[in-house]
């Protein structure tokens, strides 16, 4: 059970002639929540994008289930969920349509389940309102609704708590803990003061990392 | 020599202007390209040197970065 899902070995990334991190090695094991920490500009988002496979300006090794990630990219993408700064929500579509389109590439889900997921993020009644008429926090909630139906074991979440109110933050924290308890592996970056027992840390900014 | 005199060489039986304009533009552009490349190379070298100078000076008086304090900046009023 504790075989790592994702391993980074001697990761190094340079951006705009600035060394963000080097010799960064860590493993993401099922059933854990790991927080990436560091001041602004220390490369938290870049690290998550590298791990998700969006940024390929890095050197070192990234292993997926013990194999280099490139060997089985499809399996990696199928089993990884990434939520970035930009929520991936089309303003012209309704929450329902957005969620349906996002799921369509991964796992088809019927509308009833989608509606439940939206309701679970507090968007009941807004399913058919174009997203541009929703607030920033509500738009983020549409993206977060994916977390309620996602079957991917690895979650990479960049600044999940942005624009979310205090109650929402509480609920999401509970969700993440629950998911980790179920055996999911979660990597988050946040400026919010997240306190979870047994939480792993990856600290950027000094060039070192302690797990 | 394909020409009888120097002036015939310049005139090229009326085709002189065309030929000479071509050669002049060619020479100017080629020489310009070469000079520009050499200049760029030199300035890159100088940049490197300057960079290393400032780096060695900076490391001589290595100080930690001050943490952001978000204090307001007082503007002196004359």
């Amino acid at each position, binding site marked *: 059970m504790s075989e790592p899902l994702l391993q980074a070995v001697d990761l190094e990334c340079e*951006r*705009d*002639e600035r060394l963000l991190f080097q010799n960064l090695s860590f493993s993401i094991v099922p059933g854990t929540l790991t927080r990436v920490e560091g001041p602004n500009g220390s490369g938290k988002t870049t690290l998550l994008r590298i791990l998700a496979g969006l940024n390929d*300006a890095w050197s070192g090794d990234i292993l997926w289930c013990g194999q280099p990630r490139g060997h089985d990219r499809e399996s990696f993408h199928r089993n990884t969920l990434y939520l970035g700064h930009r929520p991936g929500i089309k303003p012209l579509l309704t929450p329902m349509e957005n969620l349906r389109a996002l799921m369509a590439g991964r796992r088809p889900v019927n509308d009833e389940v989608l509606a439940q997921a939206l309701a679970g993020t507090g968007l009941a009644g807004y399913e058919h309102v174009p997203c541009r008429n929703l607030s920033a926090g509500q738009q983020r909630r549409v993206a977060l609704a994916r977390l309620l139906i996602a079957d991917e074991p690895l979650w990479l979440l960049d600044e999940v708590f942005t624009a979310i109110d205090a109650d929402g933050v509480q609920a999401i924290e509970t969700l993440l803990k629950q998911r980790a308890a179920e055996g999911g592996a979660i990597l988050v970056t946040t400026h919010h003061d997240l306190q979870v027992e047994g939480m792993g840390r990856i600290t950027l900014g000094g060039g070192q990392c302690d797990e | *020599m*394909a*020409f009888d005199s120097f002036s015939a*060489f310049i005139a*090229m*039986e*009326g*085709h*002189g202007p*065309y*030929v000479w*304009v*071509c*050669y002049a*533009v*060619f020479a100017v*552009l*080629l020489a310009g*390209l*070469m000079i520009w*490349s*050499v200049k*760029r*190379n030199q300035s*890159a*070298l100088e*940049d*490197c*040197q300057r*960079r*290393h100078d400032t780096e060695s000076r900076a490391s001589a008086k290595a100080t930690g970065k001050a943490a952001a304090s978000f204090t307001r900046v007082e503007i002196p009023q004359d």
Partner: protein
Amino acid sequence: MWQWFHKLGSPKWFFGIATRFMPWLLAGGLLLLAAGLVWGLAFAPKDYLQGNSYRIIFIHVPSAFLAQSIYISMAVAAVVTLVWRMKLADVFVKAIAPVGLIFTFLSLFTGAVWGKPTWGTWWVWDARLTSMLILLFLYGGVIALDRAINDEKSAARAVAVLVLVGVVNIPIIKYSVDWWNTLHQPATFKLTEKPSMPMEMWVPLLLSVLGLYLLFGWLACIRMKTEILIREQRTRWVKDMVLAGRK
């Protein structure tokens, strides 16, 4: 073989080799070019059809050759960039694209000026001139894209994709322009079948082509060295070299 390949990709190794070869490239290039051009201008016999205006050929043909071979070499380097991510290959593409642009312009300009006494007009929508004009656009696009992207690695890879797309298109462009030319152009402007060149014209042409290729080699070396200096400023060997150079 692989070791050699990797060595070739190392900027430091290239820097040393380039520094050693550059004086020879420069001297050889200048000498051959000067010999070819003086010979072509003053000593080669005049062409019985075109008179003296043909002497433009001694710069027109070498420029056109270079313009095309630079694009081809960029395409080869682009493949190396995308497949093996060799640093030297992106440096090469970035360094020589402006050189290619200038030689393309020169071949167009000399072609146009040559056209005036030969065809009686500055510009003819002749198949070869038109293809060259499109090549100029392709070079322009490559340089513009390279300038527009700030991050050097992304710029190199984006440019490599563009260069490859361009090189796939070049034969298609050439073919379509030839076809378009026969469709629209009655044969009035076509040069009559070229008589086989006499030796006295051929040799100076060969000399100037060789000379310009050597000079291009020199230009490529110095421009690549500049690029390497800019990119590798912070590496140990550049620091050591800069410090050693100052003493």
